[in-house]
């Protein structure tokens, strides 16, 4: 097997990073809120996830010290080349945004206003790069000669939906963890976070977290639909049905049915349904949200594993 664990862990991390950014941007857009603290959390979370992913990717290369050869070529036809440039553009923008947040309360109000305007523009540009980033994680596999990846055009769609789903889940877990720290007694940790975020306002309202979990339930419905489409497409194609057999009945069947179908799709969907209409303070609601988000994240990793490994068998 040429592409091993480091590749599918990377695909999962990059998906979560881009997905979290897109989700936070969408929440800002549709809630009409001027407060960009969720986007800040997403960006602070996404950049390290992507950077760790890239380090894994470089380590997976046969000749890691030559990774810079990637930056000598700009090739529309090679998804890996496009991915390299998308990722670097996305990361540079995310980094500038983080620095601007960090400086926000350290500069004059006029400068802070300019920073906020610049950030707004940059975050809009990164909507495109985030969408391209999570798409590329699927296109990378789909533009190949492996039937499980190339036999349909729905693999990028599947990875995109999963990326946003895992992105929402990681936002939910991070927001809950930060809220717990804010409400806790670890003063030094709070001070450190004040420093990192450049502000003391880094709590996320419980209602927003609950709504994120509700949105994830809808995303999972779409993910189930795309998954069914993906399976049907492969079953009805000549080379695809054998390739699909590897994951549905072959050596990858256990992780597929347990890890993907149950853990990534059915269990979190079922859990999110039980909290519909409940208040954030209601008993067990946040425990359910945490469990569901954890399932989505682990399930997303198993999805990348099953597809990446299954396609090479």
């Amino acid at each position: 097997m040429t592409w091993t664990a480091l590749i599918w862990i990377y695909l999962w991390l990059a998906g979560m990073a881009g997905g979290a950014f897109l989700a936070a941007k969408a929440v800002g857009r549709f809630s009409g809120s001027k407060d960009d603290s969720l986007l800040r959390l997403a960006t602070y979370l996404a950049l390290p996830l992507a950077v760790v992913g890239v380090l894994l990717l470089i380590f997976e290369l046969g000749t890691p010290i030559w990774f810079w050869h990637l930056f000598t070529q700009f090739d529309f036809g090679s998804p890996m080349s496009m991915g390299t440039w998308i990722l670097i553009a996305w990361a540079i923008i995310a980094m500038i945004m983080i620095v601007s947040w960090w400086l926000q309360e350290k500069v004059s109000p006029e400068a802070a206003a300019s920073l906020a305007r610049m950030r707004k523009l940059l975050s809009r540009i990164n909507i495109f790069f985030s969408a391209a980033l999570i798409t590329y994680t699927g296109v990378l596999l789909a533009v190949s000669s492996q039937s499980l990846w190339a036999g349909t055009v729905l693999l990028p769609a599947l990875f995109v939906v999963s990326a946003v789903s895992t992105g929402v889940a990681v936002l939910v877990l991070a927001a809950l963890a930060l809220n717990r720290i804010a409400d806790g007694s670890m003063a030094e940790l709070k001070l450190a976070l004040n420093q990192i975020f450049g502000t003391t306002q880094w709590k996320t309202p419980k209602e927003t977290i609950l709504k994120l979990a509700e949105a994830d339930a809808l995303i999972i419905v779409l993910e189930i639909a795309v998954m069914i489409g993906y399976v049907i497409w492969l079953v009805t194609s000549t080379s695809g049905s054998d390739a699909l057999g590897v994951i549905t009945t072959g050596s990858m069947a256990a992780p597929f049915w347990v890890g993907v179908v149950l853990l990534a799709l059915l269990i979190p969907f079922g859990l999110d349904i039980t909290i519909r209409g409940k208040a954030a303070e209601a008993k067990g609601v946040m425990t359910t949200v945490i469990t569901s988000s954890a399932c989505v994240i682990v399930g997303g990793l198993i999805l990348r594993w099953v597809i990446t490994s299954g396609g090479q068998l």
Partner: protein
Amino acid sequence: MADAILYDSTKCTACRACQVACKQWNELEAEETTNRGTYENPPELSPSTWNKIKFTELEEGGEFKWLFTRLACMHCEDASCLNVCPTGAISKTDDGFVLIDQEWCIGCGYCVQACPYHVPHKDEHTGTARKCTSCANRTSNDLMPACVTTCPTGALSYGDRSTLISLAEQRVTALGGSATLYGKNELGGLHALYILEDSPEVYGLPAEPQVATKNSVGQWLSGLLTAGVITALPFWFIFKRKSQIAAGELDKGGAK
């Protein structure tokens, strides 16, 4: 001028001298293998096996029959490996042969996934992808590729591609039956041409190989459109529509 290697399966005795010659000229290590119940060995192409004869066992009219075919780089005109290579390490010679620059390849493994014939392999020792070069370092010095030079039965020949095609077509006509020429038009034309006794599928060759980048645009669109839908619909519904509904209900409640 486009060149090619022509393999005539009907003249091949599977002596595997070509395998040995390839290893000798390219200084490729021998592989330790085990008896798998076939004379075919090694089992597949690898970073140190760039050329091998594949044995297909058939039963025809109660009689055992062997079909031989050659596995090595097909040097496609529309080469998937070259299309997806992210560093530009893969190039094509003027003769039409596809080469991986060992000084530039970073060993990302993309060509391994993209090749419709599963030819390139990632070498863990060199950290690069490796495959048949059609002995470019020989042909550029007016020598035949090592496999062609060594072939004792005339099953392999090397030369101008169009000349070889006309020779091969004559041979296919003479053979009659289900004999066919493989590689004339596949993937824009292969620079490895095969005279086969039977249809390509019988030999395990794809009858209609597809270039890996064939659906690129569709694949990108599929992801980008889905990204648009997935960041609009669920978030609009939960964060906007539901708030509007809730606000509407509150208004009604207030009017009572």
